[in-house]
């Protein structure tokens, strides 16, 4: 009993610095920012209290909801793009031979490139005049398919989502490979004896054993894509005419381009609320599936 208490004390003390730093730099600013949301403030001069006006404006702003919708496209692209692709690759690349290691590194490579570089590279790939995509389309005679990928509002949101998928497959691949390798070999042997192979083995042995990992990956995916900013910012800056605006770029543009710090703070508070709701929903859905 005594020893147990001591251990708890030690835990508290060792966690304290991290906890304090975290609340100092993350939790408290969140509340500060929601407080700033009640003011009309240009960053310079006096701030005036205006009650819930900023928050009402956010809710009524069509651009905010368009950004939210665009952000949902990125969430969907990540959850239904990154996770399945990473899973499929993990199943194919779980052996430790030379070839598979090379492929694995290649898939992981984009992850270690700075996201700004990723944005620039894809900006060039999509370039209507000099870009690879249009050049290939022209070369194979599909001239009519060429587009200005980043400025045509009917496709640009999807065009923006592709590099984000490409960028972040790596870490999920590593997580999944680790999860697959953690499945006890006795289980696989037993399955083989029972005659389960191929798809059956995948569905009854491998996937159920990885389920918690996949769940974590999906949550990481959702929260990660709600935070998406850098690639979009570099490729389009949210434009043209706010057609690729996502939540973070909308917040950034309002705070730092239009100098409405109060409104920007209200937007970021709304982002936090929406993110919490989404994470909650995804947790609920996954729990049910699991049960």
């Amino acid at each position, binding site marked *: 009993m005594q020893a147990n208490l001591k251990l708890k004390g030690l835990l508290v003390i060792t966690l304290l610095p991290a906890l304090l730093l975290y609340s100092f730099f993350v939790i408290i600013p969140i509340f500060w920012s929601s407080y700033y949301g009640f003011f009309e403030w*240009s960053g310079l001069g006096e701030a005036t209290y205006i009650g819930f006006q900023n928050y009402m404006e956010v809710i009524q702003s069509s651009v905010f909801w368009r950004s939210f919708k665009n952000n949902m496209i990125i969430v969907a692209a990540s959850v239904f793009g990154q996770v399945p692709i990473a899973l499929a690759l993990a199943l194919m690349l779980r052996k430790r031979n030379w070839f598979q290691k090379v492929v694995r590194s290649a898939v992981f490579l984009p992850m270690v490139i700075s996201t700004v570089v990723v944005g620039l590279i894809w900006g060039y790939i999509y370039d209507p005049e000099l870009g690879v995509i249009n050049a290939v389309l022209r070369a194979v005679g599909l001239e009519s398919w060429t587009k200005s990928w980043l400025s045509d509002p009917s496709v640009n949101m999807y065009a923006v989502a592709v590099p984000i998928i490409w960028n972040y497959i790596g870490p999920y691949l590593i997580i999944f490979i680790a999860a697959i390798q953690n499945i006890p070999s006795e289980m696989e042997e037993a399955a083989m004896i029972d005659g389960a192979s191929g798809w059956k083995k995948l569905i009854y042995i491998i996937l159920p054993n990885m389920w918690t990992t996949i769940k974590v990956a999906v949550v990481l995916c959702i929260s990660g894509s709600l935070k998406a900013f850098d690639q979009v910012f570099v490729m389009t800056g949210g434009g043209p005419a706010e057609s690729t605006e996502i939540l973070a770029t909308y917040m950034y543009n309002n705070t730092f381009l239009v100098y409405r710090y109060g409104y920007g703070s209200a937007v970021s508070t709304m982002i936090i609320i929406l993110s919490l709701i989404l994470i909650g929903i995804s947790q609920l859905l996954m729990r049910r599936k699991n049960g």
Partner: protein
Amino acid sequence: MKKALLGLVIVLMLTGCIPNADSETTNEETSGKTTISIWHNFAGDDLRARKVRDMIASFEEKNPNIEVDEQAIPVDGYRQRISTVAAADELPDVFLTYAGSFTDEFYHGDLIQPITPLFNEHSDWKNAFLDGALEPYNYDGELYSAPVAMSATSFLYYNKDMFEEHHLSVPKTWNEWMEVIEAFNQQGITPIALGNKAPWVAQSTTFGAIADRVTGTEWFLNAVEQDEASFTDPIFLDALNRFKQLVDKGAYADGANSMDNTQAEQYFAQGKAAMMINGAWSLSSLGASQSEEVLNNIGVTVVPTIEDGKGSGNTITGGPGGGFLLSSKTEGKAKDAALDLIYKLSNAEAQKQIAESNSMVMYDVEIDKKNVNPLFYEAFNLIREVEFAPVYDLYLTSEAGEAVNNGLQEIMLGGDPEKVAETIQKAQASNE
């Protein structure tokens, strides 16, 4: 043991998180050396930036008892960095500003003090500024800065060979312009290079000039004040429709909204487009990146006039550019040193040096043709024969400026000018 650990944690927290109070002492040190801080955006490797940095270095050299703490911040982040330190009330002693609303905010926030004594002391210097150069920095009869730049945002650059080859003459009127655009389109040549990824470009370089020709300057200034003029007026709608006409005529390449301004400059310089409307900054960047031969082949003029418009046709959007401001908190010896530094960076010698690094100035100065690139020389002479018209985003609230920027992109994507006008009006009215 437990207590010791806790103590250690607290010490770590204190040293790590609470800023050291000693580091923010006053400017004067006991050693007799005066330290002044200066922030500016001459961070690049272009000729002007290097010259300004050299001037600061030589100032420090000549004044051994003054220490200059200099921070050069890249242009893109400059305004934001200054706003942030201003919000935290930690402005440097001397800092570069832009004419217009940016300076207004410092003035209204009591963050700056006048440098009028400097002008009284050097009256020759004061009188050599061009007409209207000091206007933006004049608040209630006191002068707060001396411009070290001129912003001219709407030169029409054209490729001489291409016009000659297709037997076209440089357009002087709107109708001629439309004909030229059509002619180039028929040849499969992009008529006008535009890089509007950062959406201020179309507004600052093209639309401001067109709108001024249609509405006249007075209407615009009234609309800014929301004084018997509104951005939903038919006359402004006409201006937006003119821009739409350019777009519909195919003046711009397809991906203009995803190309950045530098790319557009290259596109034009490589002869892929016949014209480009861009600011004086292109004079320096083209000067730095292109060969003499390319530069000689580029002509520069004003945007064509609009026959039935209310504005004078012979204008370029622009006016006095940035200058150095003095923080209101700088006093005593530091203030004297700061005034000296401001003078050193904007006196006749400085203006000449800046002009000869291929940048426009608002100061009456003769430049040596040999020291500048041919394109700049042509533009430098052109600018003396034209009048200035207001740059839209320097006068509008930042919100309305954004509304114009985004609205023009919308029009380029087929949007409705009437709706755009409404959004602009709403944004400008909301700040009154």
